[in-house]
């Protein structure tokens, strides 16, 4: 899109694939976080030729803002179609921001079992962390103006695109 100040999501995806390829094995389990993280994870899973089926996580039941905001309207079922116990995992999200989603995802994963290691891959690593969480595989690092956020869109052909959003709250 002309005038989009953000990096091209497809290029970031390619960068992410190249970073991950030497660092993972055929037994590595990929876990995408709904919704954007699942889109990214689907593409990574295909490009990296992983044998382990893709897992998807909806962290709504583990979020720390449940007391303040209530339950998300459209909760998806988490599907982890492999044994978590003793596995090397890579969590995949579209944007890493406060780190709270990742905290919730880690808690949920450990309810399934004890993985050997969990690493984090994210398309965009933006400033504003509120927890000691870092990504090992990063498409791009960005600093945003306060009140702005980044979201991921997927068009009908499956192409990913980043968009700038004015935060509502």
């Amino acid at each position: 899109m002309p005038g989009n100040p953000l990096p091209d999501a497809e290029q970031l995806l390619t960068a992410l694939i190249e970073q991950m390829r030497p660092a993972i094995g055929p037994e590595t389990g990929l876990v995408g976080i709904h919704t954007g993280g699942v889109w990214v994870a689907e593409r990574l899973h295909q490009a990296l030729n992983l044998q382990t089926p893709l897992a998807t996580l909806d962290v709504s039941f583990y979020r720390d803002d449940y007391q303040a905001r209530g339950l998300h309207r459209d909760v998806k079922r988490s599907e982890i179609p492999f044994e978590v116990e003793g596995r090397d995992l890579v969590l995949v999200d579209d944007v890493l921001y406060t780190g709270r989603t990742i905290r919730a995802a880690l808690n949920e994963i450990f309810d399934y079992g004890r993985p050997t290691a969990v690493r984090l891959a994210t398309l965009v690593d933006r400033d504003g962390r509120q927890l000691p969480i870092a990504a090992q595989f990063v498409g791009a690092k960005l600093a945003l103006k306060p009140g702005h956020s980044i979201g991921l869109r997927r068009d009908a052909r499956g192409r990913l695109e980043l968009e700038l959003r004015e935060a509502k709250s």
Partner: protein
Amino acid sequence: MWLTANPQLDKKGQLHHLLTLEGLPAEILWQILDTAKSFVGTRVKKFPLLRGKSVFNVFFEPSTRTRTTFEIAAKRLSADVINLNISASSQSKGESLLDTVDNLSAMHADMFVVRHGESGAPHFIARHVAPDIHVINAGDGRHSHPTQGLLDMYTIRHYKKDFSNLRVAIVGDVLHSRVARSQIHALTTLGCPEIRVIGPKTLLPANVEQLGVHVYHDMRLGLKDVDVVTMLRLQNERMQGALLPSAQEFYKFYGLTGDKLAAAKPDAIVLHPGPMNRGVEIDSSVADGKQSVILPQVTFGIAIRMAVMSIMAGNK
């Protein structure tokens, strides 16, 4: 506006108490059914949503299954559960319902799950508790049993996918059944085009047609080409006077046998809220047969109760 005055909804129109399915917006029914789906079949044993919350199961009328499934649901959400069997204690000492509720509120409950023999008791309690306490009706008199109605909807949706082409028959003691009323309201809201009630005149409420249902007194006619059959329990404990000649005669005319079920569609499913009277309203061969979804109903019931609790507890 009766909708804004719906005592079950908060100012934002979100679910605050669950008292009856009558007048509950379709959007909230779908939200509960969708949320329950994410709890079904998960390998997670315990979700942290209700950690630190106290759920009081307040049962003024005995029930094992409903109380147990509420208890399991609350515990799987990490809540602390306190079971109170009131019929055996305070009420026999003469305490009023309101005093009982005040006492329980003073024990810092976050949620009451109430079963009561009198219709309307959970509404009464919901009106009197502090604004941050949630009340779930677990069955009141002949009036309503909303979580049972919801788990029936979940079960039907699970097997039939969609309500818009379904023919559903509710058979037996409709007069005394809060399950039947809850089902009729939920099916209507979710867009089921044809609901039938089947039973002897003495066990159907007067003017039941006003709920938009078709009435049949002949089982084979009523079951013809239906997709879903809900059998109701013959509620001996609620029967006053001679509404029926005998259980044997009821079985002969209205008991679900393989022979009568053959009138329904070949892929029709059979529901029963339990506990079953085998050989009275349902034959063992049907109850244990391949069209029966009675045990899945129990499993789905836990997910439905988890969904209701986690939606309500998140609504301020």
